[in-house]
């Protein structure tokens, strides 16, 4: 049978190249889509893990504070602990590169003289230079090459509003030890980093190397007990796992979306297999009559699918890598802006990921082919030999399938609202049920179209109406398109709703005319501050009527790292600049401004299970493990970060955590002062300070640009699944053109013109597109509600107001119908070229 398989395959490829290639392309796009997301997901974590590995090397533990830093005076106590072989303090901070928005160095202050600690080979002269040269820094070779830095190059940077200059003293190639380590890592001498840029006597972490044979978990417990409540001992694996947990929602969301492409790709394989089987019924009937077993027939059909899957996978894997590479910047931006993690600089296709892509591609192809293969293997050999159409067999199915879809949805809905309510995956289960139910309704809708009054002339309308006679070929294409449209529509509504909600939030919260912060504020720790004299000068600047102050620290609430912000609570709350999602506004205002209560951001409240009236412990370090407790006066809307944040009055912050410099200032201008003119003037006046000065309008634009960047990958996934689905239309129509060659030949012999046949096929394409659109719109509406009302709150913690962008949806629908009609051109041209003599050939 193997020999026969090879012969039959050759014939298949000769006879249906376009069909075969379309199915291969479907698998390739599906695999590419899933793999690209997995590569990006892995690379996102890999970048973080790479930096941990590059800096912490062989350390089994890192001691970190609950606030941003620890006193370096802890070091002798760490070293004296039994079981500690070595301890290495590190001071980390982000320095913005002058003159380039968003470019930064991740500076690490380290003990450069510790033996074999970092991949830095310093000659004796260099050691002297490290100590002698202020701002001595070692940078990675790739960054030096990119920016044209040689030894001795001077690099102007800023930390907070302070400017300083670093000097490239050496190159340090972290990728020798951690290939995914950030190329923006830069190393300085610890004392220099503390003195020049940060706080003397403070470190970000102390890496601990345990002596051989020591129980690391036990050592961690002892160190935590000895060093007090301000210090946590975590393994590198725990740190990576924490970053993984932080990214869980982001990764899961993208993975789920990418799987839709694979799902649609599987449909294509299904359609292609059905097409091939329609053509091969007689062949398989003969084989069965001549003694081929059902198993042999099944193996024959699945063998084809396996080959198709193999080719699709072979094309899909490099495609996935290319797509991932093309999206590194967008994902990296999201990681840096939204999650404050290391950005992804390059993507790596590991053998495990390639294996995953191959497994998915082959499984998708086999699963897509399995049902038709089982159907044909089960069929009576005589029925295979008889040339029957598909409508008779399929006529009973549409109602049953639609009923099955309704039951599936009802079950999923009941579970989501009942026993599974609160289960984080319930929303995904409901969305999956919806995407599975939508294509099941396609045959019923197509049959309903078939029930429309017959047109008076042969043409497009006739073709659309005739779809119901070929359900086997057309229902899969309409179903696949419906799934892709559901996703397009659902995601479009979700993004639009999210965008509108963010715009409303910006409208309510951004009331000042000008916003001032430092270049490294967003990702910086406590060091990215505005010098007090800068704040004073800003308050006195020409045209400035009033200022709002904000000071941000990082700390922990319920073991979660959060941003703790102190602001002028009275005016902000009274002016509605903080939108409350929970709690009474007047009472919250009173409690926060006068009684030292706090507001908790929505994501934090949802993820940590915090409610209004609860008391939370906030740990920002530096208080010897004594964590102050605060009453939660309200839950506020915050779309700035998924990490979670706490807001309190600036007076409360200073009283509980000590005085300190501000991180942000908002300026209110006197009436009649043009904000853009004021911004230009301030930039000129503060040229000697590292400040980011933005007007209200510019800041909004930037926030929305970050928003768009966050969804760039999502949009790409949408596009990929749509391409697959539109290819499905071409495939279905090619199937019809081939299968129904005799029917077309009959029409031609009865006097139908080529144009009429062409229009019949275009009508079929439009009919499939309209059915896909109708079902997709219904599915998309459901999906949008599931995404907005269930998945987003459960996974990201944000509440979103549903908004229907009708104009955008209408535009997409028109575009889709146009694409579908275009997809019908080639099969229509093929079909219209069918000669009347095909009638005779059909008798072979």
């Amino acid at each position, binding site marked *: *049978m193997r*020999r*026969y398989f090879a012969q039959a395959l050759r*014939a*298949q490829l*000769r006879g249906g190249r376009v069909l075969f290639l379309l199915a291969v392309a479907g698998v390739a796009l599906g695999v590419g889509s899933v793999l690209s997301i997995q590569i990006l997901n892995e690379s996102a974590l890999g970048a973080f893990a790479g930096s941990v590995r590059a800096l912490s090397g062989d350390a089994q533990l890192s001691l970190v504070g609950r606030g941003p830093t620890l006193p370096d005076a802890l070091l002798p106590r760490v070293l004296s602990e039994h079981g500690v072989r070595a301890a290495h303090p590190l001071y980390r901070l982000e320095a913005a590169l002058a003159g380039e928005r968003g470019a930064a160095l991740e500076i690490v202050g380290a003990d450069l003289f510790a033996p074999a600690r970092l991949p830095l080979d310093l000659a004796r002269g260099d050691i002297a230079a490290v100590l002698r040269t202020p701002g001595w820094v070692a940078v990675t070779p790739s960054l030096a090459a990119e920016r044209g830095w040689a030894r001795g190059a001077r690099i102007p940077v800023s930390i907070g509003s302070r400017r300083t200059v670093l000097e490239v003293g050496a190159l340090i190639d972290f990728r020798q030890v951690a290939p995914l380590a950030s190329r923006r890592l830069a190393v300085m001498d610890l004392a220099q980093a503390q003195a020049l840029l940060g706080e003397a006597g403070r470190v970000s972490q102390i890496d601990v190397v345990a002596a051989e044979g020591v129980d690391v978990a036990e050592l961690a417990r002892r160190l935590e007990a000895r060093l007090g409540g301000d210090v946590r001992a975590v393994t590198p694996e725990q740190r990576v796992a924490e970053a993984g947990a932080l990214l869980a929602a982001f990764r899961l969301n993208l993975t789920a979306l990418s799987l839709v492409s694979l799902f649609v790709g599987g449909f294509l394989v299904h359609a292609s297999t059905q097409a091939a089987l329609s053509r091969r019924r007689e062949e398989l009937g*003969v084989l069965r009559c*001549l*003694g081929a077993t059902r198993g042999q027939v099944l193996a024959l059909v699945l063998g084809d699918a396996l080959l198709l899957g193999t080719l699709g996978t072979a094309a899909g894997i490099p495609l996935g890598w290319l797509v991932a590479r093309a999206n590194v910047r967008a994902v990296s931006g999201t990681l840096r802006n939204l999650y404050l993690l290391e950005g992804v600089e390059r993507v790596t296709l590991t053998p495990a990921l390639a294996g995953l892509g191959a497994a998915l591609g082959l499984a998708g192809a086999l699963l897509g082919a399995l049902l038709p293969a089982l159907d044909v293997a089960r069929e009576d050999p005589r029925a295979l030999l008889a040339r029957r159409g598909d409508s008779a067999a399929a006529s009973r199915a549409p109602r049953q399938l639609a009923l099955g879809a309704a039951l599936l949805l009802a079950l999923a809905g009941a579970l989501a609202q009942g026993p599974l309510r609160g289960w984080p995956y319930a929303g995904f289960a409901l969305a999956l049920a919806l995407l599975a139910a939508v294509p099941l309704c396609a045959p019923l809708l197509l049959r309903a179209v078939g029930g429309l009054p017959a047109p008076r002339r042969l043409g497009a309308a006739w073709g659309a109406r005739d779809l119901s006679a070929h359900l086997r070929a057309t229902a899969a294409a309409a179903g696949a398109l419906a799934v892709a449209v559901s996703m397009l529509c659902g995601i479009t509504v979700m993004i639009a709703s999210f965008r509108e909600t963010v715009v409303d939030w910006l409208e309510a919260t951004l009331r000042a005319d000008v916003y001032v912060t430092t270049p490294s504020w967003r990702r910086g720790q406590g060091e990215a501050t505005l010098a007090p004299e800068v704040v004073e000068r800003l308050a006195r600047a020409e045209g400035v009527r009033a200022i709002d102050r904000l000071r941000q620290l990082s700390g922990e609430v319920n073991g979660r790292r959060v941003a703790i912000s102190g602001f002028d609570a009275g005016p902000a709350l009274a002016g509605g600049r903080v939108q409350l999602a929970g709690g009474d506004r007047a009472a919250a205002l009173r409690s926060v401004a006068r009684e030292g209560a706090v507001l908790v951001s929505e994501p934090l409240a949802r993820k940590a299970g915090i409610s209004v009236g609860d008391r939370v412990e906030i740990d920002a370090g530096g208080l010897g493990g004594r964590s102050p407790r605060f009453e939660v006066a309200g839950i506020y809307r915050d779309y700035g970060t998924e990490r979670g944040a706490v807001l309190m009055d600036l007076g409360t912050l200073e009283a509980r955590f000590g005085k300190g410099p501000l991180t942000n200032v908002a300026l209110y201008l006197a009436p009649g002062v043009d904000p853009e003119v004021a911004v230009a003037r301030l930039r000129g006046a503060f040229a000697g300070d590292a400040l980011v000065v933005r007007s209200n309008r510019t800041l909004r634009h930037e926030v929305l640009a970050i928003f768009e960047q966050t969804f760039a990958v999502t949009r790409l996934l949408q596009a990929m699944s749509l391409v697959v689905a539109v290819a499905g239309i071409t495939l279905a129509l090619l199937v019809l053109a081939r299968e129904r060659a005799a029917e077309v030949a009959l029409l031609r012999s009865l006097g139908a013109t080529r144009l009429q046949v062409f229009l019949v096929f275009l009508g079929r394409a439009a009919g499939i597109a309209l059915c896909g659109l109708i079902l997709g719109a219904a599915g998309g509406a459901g999906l949008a509600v599931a995404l907005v009302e269930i998945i987003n709150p459960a996974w990201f913690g944000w509440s979103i107001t549903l908004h229907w962008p009708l104009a955008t949806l209408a535009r997409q629908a028109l575009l889709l119908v146009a694409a579908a009609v275009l997809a019908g051109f080639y099969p229509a041209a093929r079909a219209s070229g069918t000669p009347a003599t095909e009638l005779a050939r059909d008798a*072979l």
Partner: protein
Amino acid sequence: MTAGGGVMKGGVEPEILAFRDVTKRYVLPGGAAFEALRGVSIEVRAGRVVALIGRSGSGKSTFLHLAAGLDAPTGGAIRLLGRELAALSDRERTLCRRDGVGLVFQFFHLLPHLSVTDNVLVPALIAGGDLQALRRRAEDLLARVGLADRAAQHVQKLSGGEMQRVALCRAILRRPRLLLADEPTGNLDEATGQLVMELLLGLAREEGSALVYVTHSRELAALADETWRLHSGVLEAA
């Protein structure tokens, strides 16, 4: 031998196919039943040539399908090559057909993507075995039906008569003990049909296969050792 309750003479050759009181009932859409075969009993012994005649819808094709194990009777029993078909699983019936039965169809059912020789070799490709030897046999068979010079061609280029000759070679390739032919000349003109029939009979006799064929033609039926008529599902001597 018996047919329709009558008594048929038996031979000394071993039994190849035996129907005992076989009934086949189809349920039509709407629930009404249609009996295609009613109490059919017949025995076919090795080397015998049996012609089956009857009008359209009389049950001839049903008879052949049951004989080949492609379908199961509603009542009665069928023994093929010494095995009770009712006792066999679908797979066992398939293997029994593969190894012991050759089928010839009215519409040839050749595989258009294969050459003439490869079409003849399809049973060998399904069952496996010494392909070289079977290839030589296929060439020999093609030579015997006058198609040696067409062996490498694709079957689409053949005439109807040539196609049916290829189908005959395919059916006989693995030396089946029973050949079943469903109106093998029904799609051919009279002269070609006659030629194909002579070849079919010749091949069956040379190979020692029993042959049961269905035909509308009294002339072609007369070429058989015995002829039976199916009338409204009842088998009777012609």
